């Protein structure tokens, strides 16, 4: 069973994430139609297509370069709210991971935490604002706890994915306080947050990639 993550696992993650957002594109857009502007599916698909195209042209050998490339490509291809936020997530993960070729579970935990902090630094979201933060924060927390308990990395990632999904579902009744959905006031309640939905996919595919590497 694998205990570390290398660039090929990360590449697998990226490519699974691309596939999954592409497949779920209409659903993400539908969620964004209800409380946003109907482009979240298009945004994530466009961004991840650009990322994969970029990496196909030659993937960096170190984790920091790889994740920073992902982040920069998202920043420069997505736009909207999700571009800077997902972009910052990967940029900060890369910076935290450093110029290494693999990270262990603690290293991944630190990178994810740095990514989350980056999102907060950019978007100022707090728990319960009904944003992608609400899916990512519990996932990162769950991963941290699992790592502290020395749970195998694949199981830790699985738990994080489940936590992200639960966090996504918990956005349903919330009244949005950040992003476009906040303009709706009370009318934003009763809908899943699209960013939380794509974030849950990000953790789902991370778990799948790590499981696949095991």
């Amino acid at each position, binding site marked *: 069973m694998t205990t570390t993550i290398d660039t090929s696992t990360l590449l697998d993650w990226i490519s699974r994430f691309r596939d999954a957002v592409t497949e779920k594109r209409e659903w993400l857009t539908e969620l964004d139609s*209800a*409380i*946003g*502007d*109907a482009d979240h599916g298009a945004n994530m698909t466009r961004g991840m297509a650009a990322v994969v195209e970029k990496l196909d042209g030659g993937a960096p050998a170190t984790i920091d370069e790889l994740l920073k490339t992902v982040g920069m490509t998202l920043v420069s*291809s997505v736009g909207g*709210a999700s571009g800077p936020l997902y972009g910052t997530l990967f940029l900060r993960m890369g910076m935290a991971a450093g110029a290494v070729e693999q990270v262990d579970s603690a290293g991944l935990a630190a990178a994810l935490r740095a990514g989350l902090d980056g999102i907060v630094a950019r978007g100022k979201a707090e728990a319960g604002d009904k944003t992608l933060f609400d899916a990512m924060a519990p996932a990162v927390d769950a991963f941290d706890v699992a790592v502290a308990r020395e749970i195998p990395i694949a199981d830790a990632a699985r738990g994080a994915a489940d936590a992200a999904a639960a966090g996504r579902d918990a956005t349903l009744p919330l009244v949005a306080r950040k992003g476009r959905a*906040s*303009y709706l006031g009370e*009318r934003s309640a009763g809908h899943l947050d699209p960013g939380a939905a794509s974030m849950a996919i990000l953790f789902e595919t991370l778990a799948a990639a790590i499981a696949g590497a095991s």
Partner: protein
Amino acid sequence: MIFARIRTAEIKGDRTMKKLINAPEDVLVESLRGVALAHPELAVDLTTHVITRATPKEQGKVAVVSGGGSGHEPLHGGFVGLGMLDAAVAGEVFTSPTPDRVQAATKAVDRGAGVLHIVKNYTGDVLNFEMAAELASMEGIEVGTVVVDDDVAVQDSLYTAGRRGVGLTVLLEKLVGAAAEEGRDLASVVELAKRINGDGRSMGMALTSCTVPAAGKPTFDLPDDQMEIGIGIHGEPGRHREPLAPASDIARQLVEPILADLGSAGPAIVMLNGMGATPLIELYLMYGEVAALLEKAGVRIARNLVGNYITSLDMAGCSVTVLKADDELLRLWDAPVNTPGLRWGA
């Protein structure tokens, strides 16, 4: 040719859209191509989606840059030209452009006196322009920013994303553009922009939803006998939905919250803006209703605009913008402007 047919088939599937387009993913670039062909006085970059003046303004003057998602035409590209913007950055439909492109536009039009970014208050726009400004200042370009947030339909609170930027953006781009053309320095242009933002308010409504090309169907369902009050410009549902009402009643629902928020009366510049699919005959009718209400409330309409200036694709509906205007603003308003969307004195 075969490719074209495949695309048609796609369009014809369950995503029948009544739009003059080819493939949905090509809408932006193909529309910009048309802008380029129609307006030799503009330079349109079909790769970065940046529109600049073919003849840049003189060295030493503040440049004014705006941008945002597409689908609001003529905003912003149609306001590039003498007396208004130096560059507009067009994002995908309803999606803010990316920082690198905003930065490229900023760098391209900087004339050594700094650049004003006019940003509508949406998380996406704010974040991307913020990153762009960081990039630009790393290159030694001085950037000032005004975030427009004039939409009284939205509660402005410390605990939300605040009010949206809507119609006032048009008036602000005109006025600030004139000030920059006069040669004022960046600090003074930024201050003017912020003052204008503080003195203007808007409110909009929709009779129909719009359809985002990539989504292929209306963003929201609005029954035949219903309308949305308090919509933005991205096909977001409004604050509330209610039965269709006569224009006089709609006018009241738009004007009252603006006046309640704006306070005192006096001279003003007023815009009655169409959302894209509402014909002029209706916009003028609405203007008649709105102007009558405003004058009754003591607002003296010194200047006005009636037409499609900041739209939401093919949405039917309208918005009202009221900006308090002193003599300085009126002088800037009357200054020559020569853009595809707004032109006088030139």
